[in-house]
């Protein structure tokens, strides 16, 4: 049990426990805070995978922007009484069975997947940020997805502004 393995087990239990809490806790604000804890756990997992850039991107985007957006949305759609009634809809047993079944199937798939026995990671210097930058930029590399990402983002921006802007005249 090397130190990295102990750290991995610790971090993944924290992540999975807070993920379960996100899904099961009644008050929306607590669910959002547990979501932040599980996202931090995932960021530490990225560090263990020697993807430092993506760990920082995870903290910056998910925790710095998306969680705050979710907290704003929770605040905007405040219904004081809705917290008391049970939060799970009627079909939650079916959901549980489906999720459990999927987990078992995936476990079997990984068991006989040849690659999963790999234990050594590649040398860290190969995949650093500069090579990613070059790959993102050069035309026969990934330039098209690079531009498509910006079009996707602008579409999301314009769409959401159009939807969420309060009409001057009010639209009830």
């Amino acid at each position: 049990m090397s130190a990295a393995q102990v750290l991995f087990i610790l971090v993944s239990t924290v992540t999975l426990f807070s993920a379960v809490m996100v899904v099961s806790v009644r008050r929306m604000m607590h669910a959002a805070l547990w979501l932040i804890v599980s996202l931090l756990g995932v960021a530490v997992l990225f560090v263990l995978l020697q993807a430092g850039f993506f760990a920082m991107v995870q903290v910056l985007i998910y925790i710095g922007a998306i969680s705050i957006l979710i907290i704003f949305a929770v605040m905007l759609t405040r219904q004081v009484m809705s917290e008391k009634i049970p939060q799970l809809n009627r079909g939650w047993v079916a959901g549980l069975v489906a999720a459990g079944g999927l987990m078992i199937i995936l476990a079997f798939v990984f068991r006989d997947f040849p690659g999963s026995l790999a234990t050594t990671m590649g040398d860290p210097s190969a995949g650093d940020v500069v090579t990613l930058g070059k790959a993102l930029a050069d035309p026969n590399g990934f330039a098209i997805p690079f531009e498509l990402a910006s079009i996707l983002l602008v579409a999301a921006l314009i769409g959401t502004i159009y939807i969420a802007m309060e009409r001057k005249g009010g639209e009830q």
Partner: protein
Amino acid sequence: MMNAWLYIGLFLVIALALPAAAIFISYILGPKKPDPVKRSVYECGIETVGETWVQFKAQYYIFGLIFLVFDVETVFLYPWAAAYNQLTLFMVLEAVLFILILVGGLLYAWRKGALEWV
């Protein structure tokens, strides 16, 4: 490289532990005389009316949204900026196009008055 991240992990643990220890010490040192009036929520003197959660304008959400879109944009630009020295002019113009598309989004938000803090 990994012990740099180990140092960061250690430093975060210490950075959380120091203020927590300070607050705990002050909790021990400080006098403990609880009194309901002292514990009432500050409401400029009058009693708290209704629940604390208060309705909000959509303005907060729109600012958070534009921040999110520009944050993701800069995340895409950081690897490009790091590899800037080895790029040709054409690749630089690609990134400029990337930025201009998003400036279009910002101009739309500006025209629609989404940037006004009403």
